[in-house]
């Protein structure tokens, strides 16, 4: 089956390929003819996990399928040409997107790469010294700035969650140290270039001027920064909203739209349409208001589920109303919850009563009411159907009533069945519940206003 699919794909994608060849040897055909969606060279991406400085050399090596060491040697050699390699590296760093690889480089590779980088920088500096003093006075500060920039960029270039500024969410001391070091290098390098020669007096006043200018520029552009900050926040909020919208849309698509399609198909069967609509309504309600996956540990959720199942199986409408709730007690625990035996008995008896009403009452709507009180749990199943005379019950129905009754009484509860011919039937189930200490206190406290 999968072979046939692959062949079909080859034939449609590569109409020039010989179909016979494909039929005889599908696998070689695939590798011999490069698929359209896989280009000759992989996309140029910087290495993310496997980077030493910016992952540029590694990315180029992956892109051209050559040894990464040769690429690095190339950059080092280019760097000696008045720093051309360094400029090229920086530009590639800026304009190449980051990849998604995670594999870290091993120690020897790291050592060799750092060594090459140092050699490249040193060669660039020393060659410029050899050529002339003027060249050196430009290239050396430039190198210092480049190293500083690399240090800072590297910190902003990490994977994982970021703060608004683009730094890692939890910056370490090392991160701050690198950024500070980088900034110092950049400022020093630029200062040296600008001042051309180091004159201590001039340096001091110039630095002061630089600082004052920076502060002034910062103050003047405060509104701009604020606006930028707000725009960032707004954009983030919009993105979150959009994601939520998409989640809701996909949920509606999976549930409501499918059901609507089904309803259109079943339009001539009212019963089926009702069943589908009720089922969908329940599902949607659970999604909108529900407590998620705890369906089987809470009595009210379990009853809602049972009501839904009976609706689906018997094409009736069950209107469940629950007051209070009780959890299924932890395994072997004495706590507040209802023991597993009582819980199952209660659910089983309720289902039996609902099914009974659905089958025999002759009406299509059943009321289900459950209330959890401090000392007992009560469930009422009521229909307004034909009813019956309890004294002249047919044998099979008596059996069912007995099965409900026996189940509950075995767990210490009691069951009443009230029925009047023509008016309907109500099954009342009461199950005692262990009273814990603080519950008993509450009874004492709240008894006063009630009396």
């Amino acid at each position: 089956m999968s072979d046939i699919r692959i062949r079909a794909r080859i034939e449609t994608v590569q109409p020039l390929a010989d179909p016979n060849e494909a039929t005889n040897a599908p696998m070689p055909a695939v590798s011999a003819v490069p698929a359209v969606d896989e280009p000759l060279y992989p996309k140029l991406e910087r290495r993310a996990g496997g980077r030493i400085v910016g992952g540029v050399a590694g990315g180029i090596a992956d892109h051209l399928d050559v040894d990464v060491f040769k690429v690095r040697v190339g950059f080092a050699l280019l760097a000696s040409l008045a720093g051309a390699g360094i400029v090229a590296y920086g530009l590639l760093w800026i304009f190449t997107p980051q990849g998604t690889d995670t594999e870290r480089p091993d120690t020897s590779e790291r050592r060799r790469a750092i060594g090459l980088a140092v050699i490249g920088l040193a060669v660039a500096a020393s060659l410029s010294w050899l050529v002339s003093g003027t060249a050196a006075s430009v290239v050396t500060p430039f190198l210092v700035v480049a190293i500083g920039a690399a240090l800072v960029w590297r910190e902003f270039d990490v994977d994982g969650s970021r703060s608004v500024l683009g730094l890692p969410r939890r910056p370490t001391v090392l991160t701050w140290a690198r950024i500070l070091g980088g900034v110092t290098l950049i400022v020093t390098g630029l200062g040296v270039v600008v001042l051309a020669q180091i004159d201590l007096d001039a340096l001091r006043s110039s630095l002061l001027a630089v600082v004052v200018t920076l502060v002034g520029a910062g103050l003047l552009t405060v509104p701009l920064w604020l606006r930028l900050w707000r725009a960032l926040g707004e954009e983030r909020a919009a993105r979150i909203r959009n994601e939520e919208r998409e989640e809701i849309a996909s949920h509606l698509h999976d549930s409501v739209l499918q059901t609507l399609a089904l309803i259109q198909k079943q339009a001539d069967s009212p019963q089926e349409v009702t069943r589908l609509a009720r089922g969908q309504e329940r599902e949607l309600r659970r999604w909108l208001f529900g407590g998620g996956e705890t369906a089987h540990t809470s009595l009210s959720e379990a009853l809602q589920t049972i009501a839904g199942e009976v609706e689906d199986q018997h094409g009736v409408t069950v209107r469940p109303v629950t007051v209070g709730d009780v959890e299924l007690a932890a395994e072997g625990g004495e706590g507040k919850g209802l023991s597993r035996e009582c819980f199952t008995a209660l659910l089983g008896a309720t289902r039996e009563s609902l099914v009974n009403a659905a089958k025999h009452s002759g009406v299509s709507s059943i009321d289900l009411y459950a209330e959890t009180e401090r000392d007992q749990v009560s469930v009422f199943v009521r229909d307004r159907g034909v009813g019956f005379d309890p004294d002249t019950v047919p044998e099979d129905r008596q059996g069912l009533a007995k099965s409900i009754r026996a189940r509950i009484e075995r767990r210490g509860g009691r069951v009443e069945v009230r029925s009047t011919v023509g008016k309907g039937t109500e099954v009342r189930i009461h199950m005692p519940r262990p009273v814990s200490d603080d519950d008993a206190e509450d009874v004492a406290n709240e008894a006063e206003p009630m009396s």
Partner: protein
Amino acid sequence: MTFTASPQTAPDKFRVFLVDDHAVFRAGVRAELGREVDMEVVGEAGGVAEAIAGINALRPQVVLLDVHMPDGGGVGVLHGIDSGPVCLALSVSDAAEDVIAVIRAGARGYVTKTISGAELADGVRRVAGGDAVFSPRLAGFVLDSFTGRSNAPEPPLDPELDSLTPRELEVLRLLARGYTYREIAEELVISVKTVETHASNVLRKTQQSNRNALTRWAHRRRID
């Protein structure tokens, strides 16, 4: 979506105003109530502002009010209209806080949209006559908020207003079990009139009580 005024209304008919943002649903209710001889839909609106203007202009007896609408919902309408018309909330919403919020804002009852036309007409007659209309679901919510315990400490409770009498609890339980007023009267061997009084008292307490479970819901709703 404009409200339509019909000036000549027979004096013995209940004048009903529909508020719901779904035109299809309004048309359905209009058709169903149209089958009842004593009902007349005098106007309808699809938004809160439109509804307030329409209700204050037409002065209907009963307003059928959707709980959920895009611009403020039933609570917004209840806060905006002049006193006079009584409101019956009509919704598919299952969330207790929404339902309790419209009741506390002044609605005289709450029924779900799956109700049959005849039952709806019955509810309209009942609220027009000054009674409360409790669907089993509303009865369940009210019971829950009067019997349940909240984590926050209760404010000093007024015993008259903040707790239900045993008889009121009994009536409320039967309502939650799906009993009609007449069936409750038979069950408790009291008159239908007494059942109606109990139900009205429960409604009044629901609207005025300071119990946490009730104020919390209304409060949360108002913040939205």
